[in-house]
């Protein structure tokens, strides 16, 4: 019958109207500044630099290899390699970034830097409240602002961070074993030489 559909529709919206006052689960709105949804584990916003231990400068995993700088599609990463070297997590002497800037007003959150990093040094953050009243300096993050601890990484991406830690541990073990073997070989060689 003509007009039946209109009445059906009106009934449906009336149900919504009154229902929204009585059942809270109908309302999907999150009132943002007061309420916020915890970010999903897979959420990605902008990259940050991971450091181990408590000293951000000493524990920085980044070795300033500049792969991410070259791969970055919008060219938002700027790295200046250090002159001197310092031991990294594996105990190997490595360069470190004297300067590491990311302009997050340019970054497009593509995550390519994370994928190309051979040292698991750069990861994606879930922090999204980055608005600032200074559009040049405020959005250009330096290495102090970018450095975040491995604990923080575990907090925001637990499963991923566990995998990373396991891999790093395995690598470290392998490297240790290798140094051990080379050391043994060396001592053996020395011994052989001596013999």
């Amino acid at each position, binding site marked *: 019958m*003509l007009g039946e559909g209109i009445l059906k*529709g009106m009934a449906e*919206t009336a149900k919504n109207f009154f*229902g*929204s006052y009585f059942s809270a689960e109908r309302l999907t709105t999150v009132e943002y500044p007061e309420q916020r949804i915890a970010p999903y584990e897979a959420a990605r916003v902008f990259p940050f630099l991971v450091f181990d231990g408590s000293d951000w400068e000493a524990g920085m995993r980044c070795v300033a290899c500049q792969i991410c700088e070259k791969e970055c599609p919008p060219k938002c990463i700027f790295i200046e390699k250090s002159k001197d070297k310092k031991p990294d997590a594996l105990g190997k002497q490595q360069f470190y970034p004297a300067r590491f800037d990311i302009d997050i007003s340019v970054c497009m959150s593509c995550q390519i830097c994370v994928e190309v990093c051979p040292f698991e040094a750069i990861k994606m953050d879930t922090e999204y409240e980055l608005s600032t009243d200074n559009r040049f300096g405020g959005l250009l993050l330096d290495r102090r602002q970018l450095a975040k601890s491995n604990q923080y990484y575990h907090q925001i991406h637990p499963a991923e961070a566990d995998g990373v830690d396991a891999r790093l541990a395995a690598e470290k073990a392998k490297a240790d074993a290798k140094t051990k073997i080379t050391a043994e070989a060396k001592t053996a060689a020395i011994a052989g030489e001596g013999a």
Partner: protein
Amino acid sequence: MSQTPFFENLDQIFVLLQHWLVSFLPTSWQPAAGVLLSVAAIVCLFPALFALTTVFERKGLARIQNRLGPNRVGPFGIFQPIADAIKSLTKEDIVPLSADAAVHFLAPLLLVITVFMGFAVLPMGRNMVLVDLDAGLLFYFAMGASSELAVFMAGWSSRNKYSLLGAMRAVAQMISYEVPLLLSSVAVVMITGSLSLTKIVEAQNQYTWGLPHWYIFTPWGFAGFVMYAIATTAETNRSPFDLPEGESELVAGYHTEYSGFKFALFFLGEYVAMFSISGLGTTLFLGGWSAPLSFLTWIPSWIWFFSKLMLSIFVFIWMRGTLPRLRQDQLMNFAWKFVLPMCLVNLLVAALWRFMGDGWLRWVFCSAILIAAYAGMGLGEMRRQRLGPRSYRYAE
């Protein structure tokens, strides 16, 4: 009836207030001052109501869509309109370079003036009517018809294709739906035998077994009210007939090129037109300021008028939240091929009702004619697939 003096005074409080205020002036000024005072009351009241309605509309639409709606400014977002007003008043008033400046300036003024003129003849309570014109209904429709010109002026003077298209759509739509609007009101005039809106209300302010003699409770009145409601929705450019300002097609229709205060005037004009046309519908079909049940007559008449008015505003909002926008050809077909014939049948039924005398026979007879016409025309439309359910080729 429990018509105690207190409630009688409460009923007439605004009339008494006006008399008291005017009594301070010399006698020769009193009539003019009284009129000025009433005009000032109307000009203050309805914009205030408009401000409240905008926030209620947004909240109502939000609830219909299971959202919360504005709730930031003040408790429950009640001060939102104040924020909006400050925003639109402080905005720059932009007039396009190629616009016809004089006409561009006059259009919003003309719209608001004609819209407010309509209130002059609406009885908002017992003895609460600005001028009780003998040809009140005609005056109302004359003012309503003049607002179309303002819409055209706005659209044409902007020199913007969207404005012009919106104005053309609006004017075509308003003219098409003015015919059923007038015809459905003529049925009421035929039964009452007067064009005076106060007389129309008085004719409905009677009770049998505690039930009122509202025209909506008669077969022709019910059909007339439905047709009137459809026509008013189109006349005020409300959803589902909001083609003139369809955001997804025409930016904002005829007021695309208006900003700041002039845009606010258009916005105000639209809402106040909605109030006034709802007020007219209330007066014609819902008994105006009369109480719905005979034992409730002690409640002041203006409370009844405004609660009926707000109820119809709620229905407007409810429809806006439910129905999708029509297509232009559907709109015109609906007006000329369904609503207009129904109104003509309704006129015939009203005449029959008038001359058949009391008794159950006229109820049966009149209802039967209307239902037959509705079913016949409705089924015919459905069969022609003009108003039937749409099939989507690519979706689903």
